[in-house]
């Protein structure tokens, strides 16, 4: 009984989807590539995981292993980025994403 109440209370206090929120993904763009960075919320870099690159229609174009420093570069000429890109990082236990719009690419390429 006490365990059931404790579980209910723990759930009550938990922000929904909490487990999915503890991985931070960021992607920056230049004219050559999208640089993807993934960290846990404690600051540790992700050391193992897959980076999935999807196009504007949400079609998977590329899957890459993330580097030991928690980064990976996706060359722009390796993907169709005309409709923007969705970058997903999945460590097996955590996942998150970053969205790159066509404007993001154009803006950063011009700067």
């Amino acid at each position, binding site marked *: 009984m006490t365990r059931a109440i404790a*579980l209910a209370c723990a759930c009550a206090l938990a*922000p929904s989807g909490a487990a999915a929120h503890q991985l931070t993904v960021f992607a920056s763009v230049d004219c050559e590539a999208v640089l993807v960075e993934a960290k846990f919320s404690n600051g540790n870099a992700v050391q193992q995981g897959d980076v999935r690159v999807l196009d504007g229609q949400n079609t998977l174009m590329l899957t890459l292993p993330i580097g030991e420093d928690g980064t990976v570069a996706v060359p722009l000429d390796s993907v169709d980025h005309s409709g923007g890109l969705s970058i997903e990082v999945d460590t097996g236990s955590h996942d998150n994403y970053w969205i790159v719009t066509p404007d993001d690419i154009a803006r950063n390429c011009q700067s």
Partner: protein
Amino acid sequence: MPVLKHLLAVWLFLFATAGATAQEQPRVVAVNHPLQYFAERLLGDDADVVFPVPAGVDPSFWRPAIADISMIQSADLILLNGAGFATWVDRVSLPRSKLVNTTAAIEDQFIVTESITHSHGDGGEHSHEGLASYTWLDPALAIAQAEAVAVAITARDLASAEDVDARLAALRRDLEALDAETAGALAGVANIAIITTHPRYEYLARRYGLSVTALEWEAGATPDEAGLAALRAIIEDKGAQVLIWEAQPSAAAFDMTGALGLRNVVFPPLAHGVDGSSYIEAFADAVSALAGAGSE
């Protein structure tokens, strides 16, 4: 023939003018329905207000498409709720000059929650703090958010300051009336232990002194055996008499919880609008239902 050419020229002119007007109308994006409602009240016809989350999708955890983000990036004003609401805003690039966090001035009134303890990487077992996000269920906080929206609209010259001031005064009056009516209606519920199917009602409970224990059920879903076991445990421990659902469940679900002695109430948390009702009307209707359940 010259008459026809003249008519065609006039038609083309009107068509082009109409198109230009449509394009020139400013666009404001809101991350939830209450902010959409405040912006619409404050802007009147001076701008288009867009709440881009489809019906049936939880705006807290909506994953936008790339085209959605392109549309949002080109808006004139983007109204954020803050308090950790709408996780997608941290997963895209948004123009800072157009962003307004409508709870920036009331962060000292946030309710801090604690997430489930877990572990990952080399960090060992730990837990993360979170924030209760549904600030607009406290009308006093909603007023502060509406004021932030008004300041942002005026600062960006999306409507005249005189018009916005007058509209804000009317909106504030409506929200103050909602607050007073809610306080009166829920006064009789303060002594009743309430269970909610999801942790959405922290600010409502604090504002009106409600005793609330939350479960973690999916909106409107029929509970499984584990869910019912957790519910029974809370009933036994707290003596709960009322169960708040965030969405209408099946009749079978109502029967299950009713059989445990609970009075069922649907109180939509209003992140989405309710068809046919404004934010204030839907809030008042839900309060009325809760007060009715408490007095049975």
